[in-house]
């Protein structure tokens, strides 16, 4: 009884800030919609669709083929690539965006050298373009597909692949006819995450001159100062996100209910010899270099230049402060999201599965809304709460939403609960109902079952969930920008302040710090992917 109620409360906490958007639709700003429809909106819709489709095709292609490569074959470095290929998770897309533009953009050294060699009018693929944006997003987002596809390959695909081969299917045919359908739920889930991340971005796309509907929301908000109209356009983003979720559900089919418990084995990898092995190794290395190695190196070069340049070393004092803030914020958010996710996933074990299932679906909303919109929703929610409390004489001191970390952690949790929940849900699905029943019949109360049995058993997925949330929280910019208490700055804010003024050399150090800090949880995740790390 208590559990479903708690799950519903968590769901409500996520939905209410988003709900403030929905309210705005009730009194539509018709003139703004008409004006936008007559001018920018059609193009924005098309661009958004092209971007989402391009990035998901890119990420699914890259992520699942890399997962297949490291799972089905043995080649030089394959076991290392098996886990290190998720490293780009630590790279914020806006950082890769500005590094890409300044290195291979028109004014960067690469095109400079190109013009030296082939003349001023030599053709070079346009970097600041839709294509450029798709490539950059693909490079930082493919790990989501890789991660899920690889887990699926490791956990369940082995016997099916062998059976397919024994029935006379060649490797390619087996992959196409058996593996792809089997992996479809994982790939669909990964693609949905990729699309959400792309859809809600508004910083990276602007570097590349791609005008998406998220950008539209900010143009209206910041440019015409019309928050109501901006909220209405944000619901458009939400609608697209719901379409993505619907698409994912459809692609997943009923597979999520048919998960076999335990036993199934992974694919036995075959050795690739000679040039094939080298080619496989080179392909993995190339992706890693482009998405992670080269940009990080460029950032290091800039940071060193800056440190040794005329402006002198960056201020270490602030640096430590920002770093601490980022870590505190990411940890708190991860903790809150894990607790909420554990409650929501367990509620269906201790109560009516239908209501809590719906609650779980609702929490996905937060992930579908761009950060600043969530932030504004949280402010409005907390202010409304504060006013309600004040009217009954229980006013909270100060500005709750923005004067403390409460609003910040709340908004982060609204935004990032979904990825954490998904991971923990899939882990809990592996814990048989009988185990829960046994523990309860032995007198353990639900909390005790969760603490002593479920969380330890689903430990790896709880860690995965916490990591995904923490990594997202470490990179998150717009919410912190809007909601942080005065004096509370994070690494992305510092990076953004400098990068938005094109002071890339100065932005390099905090950008590196984000990557380094985000690498910690990512490495934790990598350890789980590394079969040799094993279980205790």
């Amino acid at each position, binding site marked *: 009884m208590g559990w479903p109620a708690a799950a519903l409360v968590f769901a409500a906490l996520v939905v209410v800030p988003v709900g403030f958007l929905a309210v705005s639709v009730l009194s539509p700003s018709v003139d703004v919609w008409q004006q936008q429809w007559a001018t920018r909106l059609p193009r924005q819709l098309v661009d958004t669709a092209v971007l989402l489709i391009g990035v998901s095709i890119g990420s699914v292609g890259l992520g699942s083929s890399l997962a297949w490569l490291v799972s089905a074959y043995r080649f030089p470095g394959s076991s290392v690539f098996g886990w290190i290929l998720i490293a780009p998770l630590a790279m914020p897309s806006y950082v890769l965006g500005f590094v890409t533009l300044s290195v291979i*953009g028109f*004014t960067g050294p690469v095109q400079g050298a190109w013009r030296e060699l082939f003349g001023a009018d030599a053709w070079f693929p346009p970097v600041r373009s839709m294509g450029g944006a798709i490539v950059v997003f693909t490079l930082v987002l493919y790990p989501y597909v890789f991660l899920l596809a690889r887990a699926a390959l490791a956990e369940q695909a082995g016997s099916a692949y062998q059976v397919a081969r024994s029935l006379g299917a060649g490797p390619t045919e087996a992959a196409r006819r058996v593996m792809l359908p089997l992996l479809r739920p994982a790939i669909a889930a990964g693609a949905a995450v990729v699309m959400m991340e792309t859809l809600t971005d508004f910083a990276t796309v602007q570097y590349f*001159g791609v005008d998406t509907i998220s950008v539209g929301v900010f143009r209206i908000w910041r440019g015409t100062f019309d928050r109501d109209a901006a909220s209405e356009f944000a619901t458009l983003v939400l609608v697209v996100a719901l379409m993505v979720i619907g698409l994912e559900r459809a692609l997943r089919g009923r597979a999520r209910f048919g998960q076999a418990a335990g036993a199934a084995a992974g694919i036995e990898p075959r050795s690739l010899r000679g040039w094939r092995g080298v080619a496989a190794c080179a392909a993995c290395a190339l992706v890693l270099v482009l998405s992670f190695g080269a940009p990080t190196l460029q950032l290091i070069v800039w940071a060193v230049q800056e440190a040794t340049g005329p402006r002198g070393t960056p201020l270490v004092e602030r640096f430590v402060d920002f770093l601490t803030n980022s870590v505190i914020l990411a940890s708190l958010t991860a903790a809150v999201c894990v607790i909420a996710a554990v409650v929501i996933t367990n509620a269906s074990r201790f109560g009516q599965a239908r209501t809590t299932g719906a609650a779980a679906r609702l929490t996905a909303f937060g992930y579908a809304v761009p950060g600043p919109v969530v932030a504004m929703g949280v402010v409005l929610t907390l202010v409304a709460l504060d006013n309600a409390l004040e009217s009954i004489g229980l006013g909270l001191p100060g500005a709750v939403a923005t004067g403390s970390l*409460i609003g910040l952690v709340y908004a982060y949790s609204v935004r990032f609960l979904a990825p954490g929940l998904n991971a923990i849900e899939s882990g809990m699905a592996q814990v048989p109902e009988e185990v829960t029943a046994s523990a309860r019949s032995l007198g353990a109360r639900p909390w005790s079952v969760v603490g002593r049995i479920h969380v330890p058993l689903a430990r790896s997925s709880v860690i995965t969930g916490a990591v995904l949330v923490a990594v997202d929280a470490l990179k998150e910019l717009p919410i912190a*920008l809007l909601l942080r208490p*005065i004096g509370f700055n994070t690494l992305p804010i510092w990076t953004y302040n400098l990068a938005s003024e094109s002071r890339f050399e100065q932005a390099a150090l905090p950008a590196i710090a984000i990557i380094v800090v985000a690498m910690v949880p990512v490495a934790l995740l990598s350890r789980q992917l590394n079969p040799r790390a094993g279980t205790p």
Partner: protein
Amino acid sequence: MHSRALIFGLVTAAVLILSACSSSDEDTIRIYTGRHYDLEEAFTQYAEETGVSIEFLEGSDAELRERIAAEGEDTEADIYMTVDAGNLAIATQQGIFQEIDSPVLDDAIPEALRDPDGYWYAFSARARTIVYSPERVSAEELPTTYEELAQPEWQGRVCLRNSSNTYTQSLVASLIGNVGYDEALTIVSGWADNAEILPNDVIALNSVADGLCDVAIVNHYYLARLLEDDGSFPVELVWADQAGRGTHVNISGAGVTKFADDPQLAQDFLEWLGTEGQSAFVDGNHEYPVNPDVAPEALIATTFGETFVADDLNAAEFGSLNADAVRLLDEAGYE
């Protein structure tokens, strides 16, 4: 058991963090600022001189403004500072500012650069003007007005910043204020036909240097910044419209918030910014002082000139036209 301990720990940690954040000292001015040029020299200097400490929160103008509005009387902000006039005008409408009565500021800052009722004042001026490559643009074809860049002969030779940017919007707003919506639309449509639209001014300047385009419209201090690092940077500046209205100047301004803890303390600071503190405030970012008695820093004074004819359209006026500018940019098909 573990989970309970974990939750207890988290709650304790949260409470500690929260309490650490909600200190409310005397003699501290808290500023929400849309300027993010790293550390503000002026703030540090004022703190050193007076012992009043300054805390600030950087963000975008619009979001900070919404935040102050939402925080209401609980806001910590004593001063709201922007990089653009539009948000000052809206903030005034929203009732975020309180009127201040400061003969010092009224005396120091020209009328066009402050609110007539004393809700806000400008503290630095940033000119948005034309830059060009002296190698590829000859003296006779050098454009001297914004309108010229809409002419067909500049097809493919112009770099402009995207329409989501405040600076683009306020330039267009000033065009609307000066020549009216329809003519402004013709000009901006011409720009859209001619120009490569770029995400920021630095890229625009580098693009002129590297030959992607021959002219661009940028804020003057970006060029100053590049020249500071590389004295031979091959881009030069021309003050736009010197024979006509003058160059479009946007401002960075501030006012005392309605619910400031100690309005006098905040006002004292703003008065300092407008007078003794002018150089400290503007020089770090190569901006022009708004106080006519204060000389611009040596770099811009020698390279760009001490003075130029500035468009005297009141900042409040083009600020209030910002929303129209955004719609006009949409209509013009400006990316």
